[in-house]
């Protein structure tokens, strides 16, 4: 177990760097998960948008009705009406949508003229599309009442319009016991934690392997009366322990953050999925460690691999938003199947074999990747040993 003890000593002397990666990125994962739970703007429980309404027209019933409709489901903010204040507010996102009612709007609207409100919004945002739809529905509905009921007072029209726009479809979740927001947060955390896991494991394993594979150290080991197989198995044991410890830290952090919510079938499946990707990371790191010798290159490879694979696999940008070509390329990475597995887990309502098939399929592919990477590592090691003999 001499090589194993040497492995542990190397880890100990590099513990600062490896633990820094793990801790910092776990903290970021927890932070982004807690922030993300309050910032999801795709939720069909519509999120409140921060809007400002500037009224340059009279306080007509038409305009008051608009303000009432917008205020009901959004946060009305007052950030000033001058250009610089609006610019600043949009820059710092203290407002997301600014709508200005121009002068004489009510008069022109009733006269049937082609009038527009002015809007300023964050480009390409969901909140912008949602607000556009709400405002247009309001005025279109008002116009319908006005054009078809000539004698109706504005107050009654306003009442009718607000009542109409308040009509919502009764929507039920297929499984009402399923708390989708907690599941989505768990999904987000485990995806982010995979990045921390990937970066730390690859870095830690590559550092140790590069030290043990240094020519002189390797030659001294080969001279010793210890079989090369034993040396290899010591190194693999060290890799397993390092990976498992990092996996445990990531899981425990998740348990502390989510508490009882993680002890459901969903949480346990995600923990199992994380274990599977840990195996893949470990073997991936071993392959990289066998190929890369330079200490300077280690940080480069670990950062590039972890960030690159996580980016294209849907860790930072949801998979549903990625293009088909990106998803095709990413499907050659085990991280893609890990993220897909987590996405499939949260969709399940009834846990039966049929519904678990997509999840088990992802697990199987990840294990397949792990086996392939192990085989590649063994082949590379064998080739190197043969070259050393020659």
């Amino acid at each position: 177990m001499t090589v194993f003890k040497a492995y542990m000593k190397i880890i100990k002397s590099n513990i600062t760097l490896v633990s820094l990666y793990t801790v910092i990125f776990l903290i970021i994962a927890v932070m982004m998960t807690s922030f993300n739970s309050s910032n999801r703007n795709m939720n069909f429980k519509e999120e409140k948008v921060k809007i400002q309404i500037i009224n340059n027209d009279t306080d007509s019933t038409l305009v008051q009705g608009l303000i009432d409709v917008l205020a009901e489901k959004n946060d009305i903010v007052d950030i000033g009406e001058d250009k610089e204040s609006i610019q600043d507010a949009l820059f710092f996102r203290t407002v997301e949508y600014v709508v200005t009612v121009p002068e004489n709007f009510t008069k022109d609207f009733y006269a049937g003229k082609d009038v527009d409100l002015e809007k300023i919004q964050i480009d390409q945002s969901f909140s912008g599309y949602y607000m556009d739809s709400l405002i247009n529905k309001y005025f279109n509905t008002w116009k319908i009442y006005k054009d078809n009921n000539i004698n109706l007072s504005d107050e009654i029209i306003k009442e009718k319009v607000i009542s109409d726009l308040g009509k919502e479809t009764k929507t039920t979740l297929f499984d009402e016991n399923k708390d989708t927001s907690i599941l989505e947060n768990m999904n987000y955390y485990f995806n982010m934690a995979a990045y921390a896991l990937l970066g730390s494991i690859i870095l830690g394993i590559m550092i140790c392997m590069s030290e043990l594979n240094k020519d002189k150290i390797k030659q001294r080991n080969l001279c010793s009366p210890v079989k090369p197989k034993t040396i290899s198995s010591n190194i693999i044991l060290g890799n397993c322990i390092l990976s498992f410890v990092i996996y445990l830290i990531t899981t425990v952090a998740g348990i502390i953050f989510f508490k009882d919510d993680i002890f459901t079938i969903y949480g346990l499946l995600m923990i199992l999925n994380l274990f599977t990707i840990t195996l893949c990371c470990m073997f991936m790191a071993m392959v990289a460690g066998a190929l890369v010798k330079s200490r300077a290159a280690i940080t480069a490879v670990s950062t590039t691999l972890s960030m690159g694979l996580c980016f294209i696999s849907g860790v930072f940008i949801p998979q549903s938003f990625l293009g088909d070509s990106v998803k095709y390329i990413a499907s050659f990475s085990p991280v893609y199947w890990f993220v897909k597995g987590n996405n499939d887990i949260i969709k399940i309502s009834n846990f039966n074999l049929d519904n678990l098939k997509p999840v088990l399929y992802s697990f199987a592919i990840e294990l397949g990747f792990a086996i392939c990477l192990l085989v590649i590592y063994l082949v590379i090691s064998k080739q190197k040993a043969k070259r050393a003999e020659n």
Partner: protein
Amino acid sequence: MFSHLFVNRLKIVLRTKEVLFWNLCFPIILASLFSMTVVNTTQNEELKKVDIAVISNLAYEKDESGFKAFLQEVSSEDNEEAIFKLKVVDENEAKSLLEDDEIKGYINLKGDIELTVNGSGYEETLIKSFLDYYKQRSSTISNVISLNSGQFDITKIQDIASEAKDYLKNIKVSDAAPNVTVIYFYALLGMTCMYSATVGSEEIVTIQANLSPEASRIGLAPFNKLKLFVSSAMASLLVQLGLLMILLMYIKFVLGIDFGGNAPFVLLTCILGTVTGLLFGTCISSILKISSNAKIGIIICVNMTFSVLAGMMNSGVKYLIQENVPIIAKINPINLITDALYSLYYYDTYNRFIENIAGLCIMSVIFLIITIAVLRRQQYDSI
């Protein structure tokens, strides 16, 4: 002597593979990844039709309220603007399809419209929005008919149902609209500027006699340490700026990211960012008494953290930090560089830009003072 040291340092830095990787290859890889993932999600891609089902019960089959016709219209294959793919199935099959994720929701028409979904994502929101729109417009039509005491011209219903004017005009408060995608690239540029810290760290290693044999030899030379530091730093800065310019041109001309029209100020931001990064590296290296590789590792880790907090992985994080922990936004140099570039892109005036540049200048001065304070008057016993 100054020029000799300058040229030698230039050659050393240019031949250092780590410098080329961290300051050119890695950012180009990341920029390309951003372009593939972030930019493509916001371009106009063909919207995929959402799979839905409706339960084929008596209420649906005999529906005369127009809901059946509405559903068929928004899912018709002949309709180019159709956004749904509709299946008409029985209740058990609908539940099974939903469980298997073959549909995103199913509709049950029993008295009122009811929707059942299995999640709360974009597709589910879209289905609900359409059904809400139908309910709201139907309510309006019913009210209009009843308010007209039954003397309503039925032929007008079609016109009412399709009333959909756009009452909004987009106004630009600045030349460039607030845009989420550019934040990723600006944060990447900020990160690259700060990666000059790796070279800054190496500067200290080649000057401090206790850190490397080269530094011990250089320490023997009758040359002022400050001049030595300045000549080496200028050579490193020149290389960093050259690599940053290549990255900048790649992002602007190959990936097509807009930086606004202020090229000189963009360059100024990059130069100042690189100087801040270099001095950050010298500061870290002079304080920490660990191996060179460990210092590089820590610098990279810290830079990645700063980048994440500046919105490089998720632009929403930047604004959440600003709202909840604004002090971090103020002391994060990558965030300052990102904000400086974004304010050049977005604002007509330079107030915000000057604030961020001032922040970077203050940081550079602080790092420089710490570096000099640690390095000055250090001598080694001759033994």
